[in-house]
C-alpha cells in the first residue's frame, strides 16, 4: 500500500507500507526499511533497524501534526490521510503568524466572507492581528475559542470557495 507522510510540510511517499504489531516496513525511494518496536513508554520509543535508537512522538496538535524525535533528528509530521479526511484541504487554512491568544471571533462558521475580510483577531506580542480571509467563500471551520492560546503557524480557520 502506498502511504503519504507530511514531514516538515513536505510530502514523503512510501510504498508497500505495512504495520503489523511491533513491526513497520516500507520502501522509500527504492530502498526497503524495516523497524521493530523494542519498547514503548507513553511518548518514548526504542526502535531497532539493525541498530537500536531512541525516538519520541508528541500528541498531535489540532492541525494533526506531531513533533517527532528520532536518532537526534527532529521534525513536525503526520500521516497525510489524517489531514485530508478532516477538512478536505490541507493548504486552505488561515494560519496564526505567531503564538498568541484568540482575542475576538468576528464571524460564525457557515457565514459568507469576502477576500480580505477579518474573521478573527489574534492578540500576540501585545498587538492585535486581524486574521483575514484569503478568498471569497464560506467559513468551514474556526478551530479555537476566544481566550485560547494558539501556537504560531497553526490553522485557525478555514474558508472554502
Amino acid at each position, binding site marked *: 500500500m502506498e502511504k503519504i507522510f507530511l514531514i516538515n510540510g513536505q510530502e514523503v511517499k512510501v510504498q508497500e507500507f505495512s504495520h503489523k504489531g511491533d513491526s513497520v516496513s516500507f520502501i522509500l525511494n527504492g530502498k526497503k526499511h524495516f523497524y521493530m518496536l523494542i519498547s514503548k513508554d507513553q511518548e518514548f520509543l526504542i526502535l531497532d533497524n539493525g541498530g537500536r535508537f531512541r525516538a519520541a512522538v508528541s500528541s498531535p496538535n489540532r492541525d494533526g501534526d506531531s513533533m517527532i524525535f528520532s536518532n537526534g533528528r527532529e521534525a513536525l509530521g503526520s500521516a497525510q490521510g489524517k489531514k485530508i479526511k478532516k477538512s478536505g484541504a490541507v493548504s486552505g487554512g488561515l494560519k496564526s503568524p505567531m*503564538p498568541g491568544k484568540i482575542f475576538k471571533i468576528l464571524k460564525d462558521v457557515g457565514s459568507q466572507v469576502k477576500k480580505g475580510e477579518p474573521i478573527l483577531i489574534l492578540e500576540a506580542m501585545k498587538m492585535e492581528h486581524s486574521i483575514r480571509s484569503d478568498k471569497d467563500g464560506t467559513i468551514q471551520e474556526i478551530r479555537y475559542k476566544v481566550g485560547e*492560546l494558539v501556537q504560531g503557524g497553526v490553522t485557525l480557520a478555514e474558508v472554502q470557495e
Partner: protein
Amino acid sequence: MKIKKILVANRGEIALRVLKTAKEMGIRVATVYAEDDKNLPHALFADESYSLGSGTLQDTYLNKLKLIETAKKANADAIHPGYGFLSENTEFASMVESAGIIFIGPTPESITLMGDKIGSKKALEKINIPMIPGYHGDNQELSFLCSKAKEIGYPVLIKASAGGGGKGMRIVHQDSELEEAISGAKSEALKAFSNDKVLIEKYVVNPRHIEVQLMSDTHGNHLHFFERECSIQRRYQKIVEETPAPNLTQELRLKICETAVQISSGINYRGAGTVEFILSPDGKFYFLEMNTRLQVEHPVTEMVTGHDLVKYQILVAEGEKLPVKQSDIKQKGQAIECRIYAEDPDQNFMPSIGKIDRIGTPTLRDVRLDCGFLDGTEVGVNYDPMLAKLVVWGETREIAISKSIHSLDEVLFLGVKTNRDYLKRILAHKDFVSGFTHTHFIPDHKTELEPRVHSDQDLADLIAALSFSGTTKVSNGSTEVLKNPWTELIGFRN
C-alpha cells in the same frame, strides 16, 4: 545576622536555583507565583509559596509592595531577587532594606551607579578602566568631528546620540568615506529622532564578549571567579556561554579579571556582580557595563571553579567574610551552558508555546539541567521563553562540546518547539570548535547554521517513529487511542 528564611522574588529555574542552595544551608525558603504559574515547580517545591494573584507583570512579579508585604507575612528575613525582574531596581532594594529585610544583592547606590550607563563610564574612567575610545561631546561641527574620527583611528562607528535600531549608524573605514557618512548619519538621525547629534566610537571588528564574575564581601574582600565567554548571541541575547574563554592567553585573562576587580573594589561593591568587556582581536579590551546581580550563566563558573555563588551571596548578605581567598579560586576543565528556548530558530526565532508532554533527563556525569518546568506544564506567552539551561562540564573543551551535543539530544521538550537542534549546529560549527567566536557569529554564519536536510535514512526513522506512536486517526476524523502504553508495553524483550 544568620538568615533563617529567604523569600525568592522570582520565578522559574532561578527561583529553584536559590532554593537548592538555601536548602543545603538549612535555610527555609518561601517562593511567590503568579496564578498562571501555580503548577510550575517554583510554586510547588518550596517550604512555603504565596500567590501574587493574576494580571500583568506589574501586578505580580514586579509588584514591589506586594512582594515586601509577602516577605513580612512569611516572616522572611531576606529577599533574593534572582535575575531580571526587580534584581537591578534601586527603589526595590531601598524599600526592602527600609522594611528591615536583608536584600541579597548590592547596595542601592551600586545599582544606581551601574544602571546609569553614562555616569558609570565617567566614574570608571577616573579609576583608569579602559573605555572604547570615542567622542560623545556637543561640538557637532563637521570638520571637528572629522578630526576626532581620525584621532580615534579607523574603523569608526558614527551613531545617532538619541539612537537605537541601527538608524543613523555608519561604519567608516577610511578618510574618503568620512564626511559623507557623518552627514548621512546626521540627516538620518534628524529624521528618526528629531535630533541630529551624533557620537563617534572606535568600531571593533569581530568583538568578543568577555565578562568577569565578581564577588565582594563587606570586609573589603573583592574576589573574581575568572571570566566567561558569552559571544554567541542572537538579537543581543546570549545563548551559549562558556568558561574558560578559548583562545585567551593566561596573561590577558588575568589582566581582564584584575581590571574587573579594580572596578568592584573601586566602587566598594557588595555581593555578586559581573563586569562585561568587549575584547578586540588585537587583545585590547574595553568596559561595556556592569550587571549588579547573579547572571543567568553563573553555573558555568560554578562548574569550573567548584564554588557555589548563591551560597556566597547569602554569606555576604549575612555580613560574613567570604570563606575563600583569591589564590583558592582556580579553573578546572571546561564548562558550557546552552540556553534552551521555546522558539523556532529556523523561522526567525519565533517564540513557541504549548504543553510540555515530557522533559528528557540528561544522563552523563557532570551535566546539570536547570529547568523551571515539569512534565505536563504549559509554556505560555507571558514570560521569557527560556525553558532551561543545560550546563555541561568536561575535562577539556573538546569533551565539553561533545558531551553538550549528546546531552542536547537527551533533554528534549516533547510538545514544544525548541532551539535544541540549532544549539547543536552552533556547537558543531568548525569556528565554534576552534574557539573563533565573536558577537556576529550567528548573523555571519546564518547559512551554515541552517538545518541539515533530512537524508532518506532520517526520513525513514521519523516515519517509523510516527507509525509506532500510540494514536491514529480513523476515517471520521476523530482520534482513537489504539493502545494504552501503561497497560500494554508491547515487545518488551530485553
